[in-house]
């Protein structure tokens, strides 16, 4: 993926753990920054914010069914459905039983439901701001969202309450600039500020979030959350470096984020100074789906890495592939038939064109994947047309492909050379991918195994996904040539290419 770096917004509104041991007077509820009508009638009962089911429908936009007889509330949208029963300490969410700290309750003929539970289960992010007694709700697509603490704990200590108020008053643009340096030190309880690690860079590239840190002794924590799917990384005893902070644009409401359009995995990455005591930087990766990842830290350079490529690139282990399916759930594999039209490729012993073999072989692979539930094939060409090398790369980029395979037949002015070779150009997942493809391919060709080789070839170097180029056999060798243009040879090779793709993606053959 292209390098997307930078930070747009920065937030100094410090959201504390739910602290609802106060009167409900003045309770405010905001959805995506807009205040719900005062008549919403939210109230705090035993530290929980409760809202009438009417508000769930009218203000939050979910559908609600109320069965008066069984006192059952059913709330649903197109993704999630939940059932709650008045005074029952568990709910059913998408068929699963979930315990409730605070069940729905009836108050003066109005059914009240716990806002945080309902909101979060329905995909909202719910933040409680103690200082202003406000609940901030954000839909997952809302850009200026700030995450809540992962786990609601006991009400905040008094000194934290103090710093919260101070922090949230800094939420305007004018004070943000100056407050970065002092944000760790204003909590008034003597917390150490000198030794804070500085966050110097935040980038997202090749499905990896890389956070550059000034010190190696950071102890980041990470949590995976769902509804919506997201990964939360907290870096305690850290703040943003002044230069990083000042180099970025940030809006008045003080939130930072990297927006990723059309990324198959990630919708955006948000960050903020999440807490002042201890000074904690929080980075949230908003995922489009449940996604495996690897969390690592490195020393020299000091980085924190969240790698969404799934981790293992062991050749042939099949599980945990270095590839992630796109949003529609199918892997996209580009099959590139080499050469075409005015470029015949190499000429075989019997004057047949390489381009014709390449096309026939590519079409056979595509045919095998027709109606495949997991893999969608995109062909760079499906007839005898000409594409420049860079146009082939563009096809793969535009298709947001997960894998790229170029099909060729080989040629050398030495007739004794025979066999199958597989090429890669980049020392990333491409190498493992080439190895998996090659071990399958040689079983299909039954020609001499001439190995996996690295060479700087345009289509395998310039593409951004795991890529390899198959030189199936030698057109300049008699045995190879005879095989290459045979239907059953091509069928066998197509099947071996399919097997390789499935193996690399960890799919059932």
């Amino acid at each position, binding site marked *: 993926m292209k390098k997307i770096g930078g930070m747009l917004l920065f937030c100094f509104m410090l959201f504390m753990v739910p602290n609802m041991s106060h009167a409900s007077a003045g309770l405010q509820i905001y959805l995506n920054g807009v205040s719900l009508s005062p008549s919403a009638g939210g109230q705090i009962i035993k530290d929980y914010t409760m809202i009438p089911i009417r508000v769930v429908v009218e203000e939050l936009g979910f559908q609600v069914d109320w069965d008066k007889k069984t006192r059952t509330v059913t709330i649903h949208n197109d993704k999630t459905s939940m059932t709650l029963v008045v005074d029952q300490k568990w709910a059913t969410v998408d068929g699963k039983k979930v315990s409730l700290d605070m069940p729905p309750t009836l108050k003066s003929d109005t059914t009240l439901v716990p806002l945080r539970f309902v909101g979060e289960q329905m995909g909202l992010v719910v933040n409680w701001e103690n200082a202003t007694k406000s609940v901030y709700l954000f839909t997952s697509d809302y850009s200026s969202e700030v995450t809540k603490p992962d786990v609601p704990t006991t009400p905040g200590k008094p000194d934290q309450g103090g710093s919260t108020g101070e922090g949230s008053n800094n939420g305007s643009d004018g004070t943000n600039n100056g407050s970065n340096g002092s944000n760790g030190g204003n909590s008034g309880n003597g917390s150490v500020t000198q030794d804070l690690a500085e966050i110097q860079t935040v980038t997202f590239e090749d499905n990896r979030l890389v956070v550059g840190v000034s010190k190696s002794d950071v102890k980041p924590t990470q949590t995976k959350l769902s509804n919506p799917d997201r990964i939360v990384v907290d870096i305690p005893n850290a703040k943003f470096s002044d230069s990083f902070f000042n180099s970025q644009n940030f809006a008045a409401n003080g939130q930072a984020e990297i927006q990723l359009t059309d990324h198959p995995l990630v919708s955006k990455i948000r960050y903020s100074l999440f807490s002042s005591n201890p000074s904690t930087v929080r980075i949230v990766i908003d995922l489009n789906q449940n996604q495996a990842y690897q969390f690592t830290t490195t020393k020299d350079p000091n980085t924190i890495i969240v790698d969404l490529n799934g981790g293992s690139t062991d050749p042939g282990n099949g599980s945990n592939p270095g590839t992630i399916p796109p949003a529609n759930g199918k892997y996209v594999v580009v099959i590139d038939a080499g050469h075409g039209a005015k*470029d015949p490729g190499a000429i075989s012993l019997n004057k047949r064109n390489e381009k014709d073999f390449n096309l026939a072989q590519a079409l056979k692979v595509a045919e095998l994947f027709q109606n495949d539930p997991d893999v969608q094939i995109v062909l760079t060409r499906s007839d005898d047309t000409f594409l420049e090398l860079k146009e082939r790369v563009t096809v793969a980029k535009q298709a947001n492909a997960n894998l790229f395979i170029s099909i060729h037949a080989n*040629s050398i*002015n030495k007739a004794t050379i025979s066999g199958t070779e597989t090429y890669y150009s980049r020392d990333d997942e491409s190498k493992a991918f080439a190895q998996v493809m090659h071990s399958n391919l040689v079983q299909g060709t039954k020609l001499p195994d001439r190995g996996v080789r690295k060479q700087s070839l345009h289509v395998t170097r310039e593409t951004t996904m795991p890529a390899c180029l198959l030189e199936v056999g030698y057109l300049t060798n008699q045995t190879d040539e005879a095989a290459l243009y045979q239907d059953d040879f091509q069928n066998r090779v197509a099947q071996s290419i399919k097997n390789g793709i499935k193996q690399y993606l960890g799919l059932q053959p």
Partner: protein
Amino acid sequence: MRKFTLLAGTFVLLLALATGCGQKTETNTNTQTGDTTEVQQPTEQTLKIQSYYTDDQILNLVPKEQEIKFVEEKDKYLTALKTLQKTDDPNQIALWEESEFLSAELKDGGALTVDVKVPAEAHLGASAEDLAVQALLKTAFQFDEVKSVDILVDGQSVDTMMGHVELEHPYTRN
């Protein structure tokens, strides 16, 4: 066929010398006697160069010392490149065997433009194409005065010679 071309080339060279108009001076001390050239020409230079081929696994470039003969300095580059078309080492493959070098002209400032003809029959596989380009470049850049090399195909600046490796226009010394 190749031999015939070389002989014809020699003949043209002799003709050129015979019709030369007296600018020949006896400055060349490299002239060897008793070699295969039928007629001794005082202005002919002989130079030992490195030419590049590939091994029979098509894995690497392998250098081999070759001797070239030329009269005028400007002919040096084309003569050098033509050595890439043939090797007598059975363990080596001449990557340019079936292609042709049409011209190799050094312009002021060290820009060498090489025009090649690559018939479809000379098209190589992916790795051999890459090695062929590298062989040409290494052979050309061994001459210090060559600062850049631009490879044209039939006089045209094209994206690729054989459909696997993109050509840079020009390549510069790295």
